[in-house]
């Protein structure tokens, strides 16, 4: 106890001398190192929490929820026909609610605890925190800094919002042609078999104060050194490929390619895209888990990549179609947000900007040329924007994280206190990123295919042709979006 008090005082003293840190530069660092506690107890962790980080993480969690409802719901809803507006809104709203419950019952435990057996730890967590057992206001979660903690409930709810939005992204691929109940069944099973394992593989680790003692305690892709700051693989590639497989297995909409299916309200889509943009600051900058300089880096990177991608999409439309469209600008902004997600905490603002400029032409090619050539009905371009943009970002991260390009480099947590590696191997990192992308594509793609198949054979995924023509709002939900 007296040790703890002593440490607490030292920490206070450190914060007291920050003002003269420049003068005392080296002395302060040495002082801080000496004060670091390896593998702190929960009681010690309680002294390593600050109100700024806690506040920021709670605000970020609310921002990420806003991305789903109403952001994503409106972004998607505006792009479908009037008769299917409510079906999209309801799908997103209910997926958020159902996966929230699932997260509290088993999801958090399956994603962020050690495996049921050590051999399973690289792939999936156990049930030690199921029903939020042992998770309360006096337990703490690690950040990316030594001896800095946030309340575990902050981490729980922040990660919950990610588990909510990811399955909601999928529905855009087969919008306007899916029954509601089978979709919810799919989302529950997909969360259990795809999202939690992939989140575990990429993000589960022991934390900076424990990794030097237990270097093998972590997910498969984390252990390989894959960089995914805010969820390029876990969220976007994961959802993007699940959507693509779904749109192929469920099939095209009735009348696809013959009837006009223009968006019913690009106004809604613009509002939705803008809410996504604002909420994404919680998503990316929040993913630093604390409020510090790197949080600001992620914030600024998110801003610049998005601006750049919106501009480059508008420019390419100006060149190809002679007219820059609002939908194009909104699509570009989302593509930029997706691409910068894995890179947000690693890139320099200028390389994030370049990443944004590059991603839009790539996604544009997919949603126009590639989609038209292969004639798949990825209704709202979940694959073309989220999966392709996510892959661009995941691979790009290997380049922009390089300190030689102003990136943040890689922190070595097997040492305590942790140190930033002085060397950086771009090609090696690119291979690791490629491997992470491939594993996510295969894991999510194959399991999703099995789930779609089983659900289609048992309760059926698709409404009747008549119901589809009538519109899902009336046939699935018994209401209309607009009664003028």
């Amino acid at each position, binding site marked *: 106890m007296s040790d703890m008090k002593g440490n607490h005082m030292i920490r206070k003293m450190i914060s007291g001398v920050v003002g003269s840190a420049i003068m005392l530069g080296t002395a302060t660092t040495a002082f801080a190192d000496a004060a670091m506690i390896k593998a702190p107890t929960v009681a010690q962790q309680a002294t390593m929490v600050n109100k700024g980080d806690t506040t920021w993480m709670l605000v970020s969690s609310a921002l990420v929820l806003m991305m789903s409802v109403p952001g994503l719901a409106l972004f998607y809803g505006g792009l479908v026909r009037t008769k299917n507006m409510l079906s999209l809104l309801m799908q997103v709203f209910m997926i958020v609610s159902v996966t929230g419950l699932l997260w509290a019952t088993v999801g958090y435990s399956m994603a962020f605890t050690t495996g049921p057996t050590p051999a399973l730890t690289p792939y999936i967590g156990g049930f030690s925190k199921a029903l939020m057992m042992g998770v309360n206001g006096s337990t703490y979660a690690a950040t990316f800094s030594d001896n800095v903690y946030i309340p575990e409930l902050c981490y729980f709810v922040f990660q919950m919002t990610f588990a909510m939005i990811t399955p909601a992204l999928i529905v855009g691929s087969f919008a306007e042609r899916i029954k509601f109940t089978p979709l919810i069944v799919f989302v529950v099973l997909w969360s259990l078999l795809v999202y939690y394992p992939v989140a575990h593989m990429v993000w589960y680790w022991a934390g900076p104060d424990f990794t030097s003692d237990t270097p093998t305690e972590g997910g498969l892709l984390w252990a390989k050194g894959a960089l995914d700051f805010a969820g390029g693989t876990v969220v976007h590639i994961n959802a993007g490929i699940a959507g693509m497989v779904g749109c192929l297995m469920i099939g095209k909409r009735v009348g696809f390619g013959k009837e006009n299916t*223009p*968006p019913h309200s690009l106004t809604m889509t613009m509002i939705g895209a803008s809410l996504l943009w604002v909420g994404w600051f919680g998503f990316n900058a929040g993913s630093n888990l604390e409020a510090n300089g790197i949080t600001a880096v992620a914030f600024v990177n998110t801003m610049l990549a998005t601006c750049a991608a919106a501009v480059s999409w508008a420019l390419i439309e100006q060149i190809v179609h002679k*007219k820059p*469209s609002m*939908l*194009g600008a909104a*699509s570009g902004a989302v593509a930029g947000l997706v691409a910068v997600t894995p890179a947000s905490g690693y890139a320099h603002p200028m390389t994030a900007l370049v990443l944004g400029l590059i991603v839009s032409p790539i996604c544009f090619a997919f*949603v126009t*040329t590639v989609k038209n050539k292969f004639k798949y009905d990825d209704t709202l371009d979940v694959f073309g924007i989220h999966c392709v943009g996510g892959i661009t970002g995941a691979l790009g991260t290997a380049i922009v994280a390089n300190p030689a390009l102003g990136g943040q480099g890689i922190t070595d947590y097997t040492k305590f206190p942790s140190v930033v590696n002085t060397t950086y191997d771009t090609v090696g990192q690119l291979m690791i990123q490629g491997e992470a992308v491939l594993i996510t594509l295969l894991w999510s793609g194959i399991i999703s295919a099995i789930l779609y198949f089983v659900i289609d054979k048992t309760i059926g995924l698709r409404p009747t042709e008549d119901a589809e023509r009538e519109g899902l709002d009336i046939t699935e939900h018994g209401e209309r979006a607009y009664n003028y």
Partner: protein
Amino acid sequence: MQYIIAIIKPFKLDEVREALSGMGVAGMTVSEVKGFGRQKGQTEIYRGAEYTTNMLPKVKLEIAVSDDLAPRIIEAIQQTANTGAIGDGKIFVIDLASATRIRTGETGDTAL
């Protein structure tokens, strides 16, 4: 009495209305309609999906007028709704059998 039905470009509505009001037209019915004629539809592009809308939005005016006023009204609509481009619309005229003002029960020209 004559019943004049004019299909015009939506943005010409205010101009036509102003012209007709100045001529003593006391009322008209306006609806937003869609249709096609010789005018080619517009091409809309949504993320690479190209749609040609063959039904274009127009405004339909319906005006009941006395026989002596009708030729001047038709001419005024033709003049003001004219842009010289394909798609300016059409004016149809049919004989009107009767007109009744619901409030008073007046019939014929006085009901207009």
